[in-house]
């Protein structure tokens, strides 16, 4: 779960990291609440990255200019991500900017610091980046070593090290995937502040992080309606721009099926993994979600019944096809209880194709031949 900048900063502040004073507004007239005087910075609160480049950060010299800017900014959409509010902060005198983040490193299998003495950068493409594995349990000397490697000495070494330690503590205590301060700034007065930040909470930890209870819903507002629906019932849907609706069991098999669709000349319309051991009801819900995509011309169902019973899937299919008799449907089923499934499907006129490549080719053929028409439920 990605958090908004203002939420990340609240968490930083609770963890002892200094952030600038700020006011969050959702209407231009609320700008009058600003207590720290002008000029100010106005920043759109969106979940997508690249907000600055997209024009989502503006400076206003007075209230008038600020309110004019706020009107436009509040309506802004950055990479499909809607502006939730604006964060207003004073313009600060910056002496130096840094990048500082904690995340999990796949290769090392542990948390790491990622840092750079250049701030506000695209960390993926910078060549001034330092990474440092973090031992568990954490001890403050690790943060000091990081500050030293960043080239700090004296008081600033101690202060930057302190921020690093606090950032790790937040990362650990809140089960984050990412705790990023970018930039961490040093003011003319040698104050160290988090000027902007990003936090990603690990989705699997949400049920034990009571702090985030009830947060998920308002952090999924950038998802499509079907993606949200899937998320709520525990299915993983990713929408694509093709016309073959795909439904498989298992993430790897779903991706491989999409890839084969493309290889044989088709265009996958989505990724949908119904997971292992899904029952009739869940399979039916998944079928409905794929069906609801207006771009979907053909549906390709690929179930390798290792643990999943093919007959359960077949029964769901029969119900589905009764409701949507005009839906083009290519079914590949193989594995557990395949023979029973075959019989069930034959009765409702559905052909089962046990060979995966044959099934994919059939779906592609149907998708390129169909004339587009809406497929609704049977009246």
């Amino acid at each position, binding site marked *: 779960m990605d958090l908004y900048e203002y939420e990340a900063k609240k968490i930083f502040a609770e963890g002892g990291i200094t952030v600038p004073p700020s006011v969050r507004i959702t209407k231009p007239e609320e700008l009058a609440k600003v207590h720290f005087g002008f000029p100010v910075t106005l920043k759109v609160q969106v979940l997508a990255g690249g907000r600055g480049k997209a024009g989502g950060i503006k400076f206003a010299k007075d209230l008038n200019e600020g309110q004019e800017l706020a009107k436009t900014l509040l309506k802004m959409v950055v990479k499909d991500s809607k502006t939730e509010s604006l964060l207003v902060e004073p313009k600060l005198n910056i002496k130096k900017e840094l990048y500082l983040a904690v995340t999990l490193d796949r290769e090392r299998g542990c948390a790491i610091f990622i840092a750079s003495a250049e701030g506000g950068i695209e960390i993926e493409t910078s060549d001034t980046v330092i990474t440092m594995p973090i031992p*568990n349990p954490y001890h403050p000397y690790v943060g000091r070593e990081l500050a030293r490697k960043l080239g700090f000495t004296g008081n600033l070494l101690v202060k930057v090290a302190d921020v690093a330690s606090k950032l790790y503590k937040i990362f650990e205590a809140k089960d984050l995937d990412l705790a990023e301060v970018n930039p961490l700034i040093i003011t003319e007065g040698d104050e160290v502040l988090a000027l902007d930040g990003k936090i990603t909470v690990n989705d699997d930890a949400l049920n034990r992080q009571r702090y985030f209870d009830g947060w998920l819903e308002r952090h999924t507002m950038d998802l499509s309606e079907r993606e949200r629906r899937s998320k709520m019932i525990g299915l993983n849907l990713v929408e694509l721009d093709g016309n073959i609706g795909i439904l498989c069991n298992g993430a790897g098999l779903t991706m491989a099926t999409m890839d084969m669709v493309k290889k044989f000349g088709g265009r996958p319309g989505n990724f949908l993994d119904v997971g292992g051991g899904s029952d009739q009801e869940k399979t039916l819900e998944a079928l409905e979600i794929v069906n609801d995509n207006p771009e979907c011309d053909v549906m390709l169902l690929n179930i390798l019944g290792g643990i999943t019973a093919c007959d359960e899937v077949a029964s769901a299919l029969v119900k589905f096809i009764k409701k949507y008799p005009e839906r083009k449907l290519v079914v590949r089923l193989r594995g557990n209880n395949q023979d029973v499934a075959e019989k069930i499907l034959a009765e409702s006129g559905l052909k089962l194709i046990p060979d*995966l490549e044959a099934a994919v080719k059939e779906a592609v053929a149907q998708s390129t031949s169909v004339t587009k028409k809406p497929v609704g439920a049977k009246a």
Partner: protein
Amino acid sequence: MILIDKNTKVMVQGATGKMGSSHLKRMLAYGTKIVAGVTPGKGGTEVHGVPVYDSVKETVEKTGATTSVIFVPPYLALDAGLEALDAGVELICLITEGIPPQDTAKLVAAVKEKGAKLVGPNCPGVITPGQCLIGILPGQIFSAGKVGMISRSGTLTYEIALALTDAGLGQSTCVGVGGDPIKGMGYQELLQMFNDDKDTEVIVLIGEIGGNAEEVAAEFIKNNIKKPVVGFIAGVTAPPGKRMGHAGAIISGGKGTAESKIAAFKENGIHVALTPSEVAQMVAKAVPQLVKA
């Protein structure tokens, strides 16, 4: 074969839960030597005829089990894994999906310290066909032979195993390493084991988008692996920035694409198949002597 064989003594942690008990039954039916189940507070009972103990330590003392398959809920998995390690279990197969990765990182560190082995989490398990199955793999799809398999995926592995079996190419051992970004055994360790295994003549490596493990493995293969390797990468059509089911399957910051992985394979002399059935064809071509009449 590697990791497990017909003599491996296996316990099931979380044996009395819904998933644990149903897979315990399947594993038993397959012929796996399941010597015990472990569920705190259920000691003294039985699951499908297998005795249940309250702790791993007790189980190890009473049964000599050296391997544990874990089915406990996500937030209890770290504790279960550490309990197994502390009791001297040598191989842990962690099936559970949805473990917060900071927990996994702690378990991985402890595994390294103890010199034990961890497969998973979020994995289908390990099978040495005809001898031993630990986890949730469907045994009937696999057949004994000389192909070693390593995979980040579950059903895709079954699909490829099916293609191999259909083509008369049995497997020595198949290891599902799991779909999480932080995990136990990785490609290199297993590649080395298959390389050193006299029962394996060719290796199939099934990767997917996310991270750079395949790129690293490709170079490792070039420098260290003497046996032919056939690779497959899922996710050519996956869009960037979206998690594709597995926690680890995501292209982020332009890294972890299928193109990059396929290129790395090709540059390092690894055959790359584009469909499951192509995997079987390439294996047959690489080691024609394996194909059963």
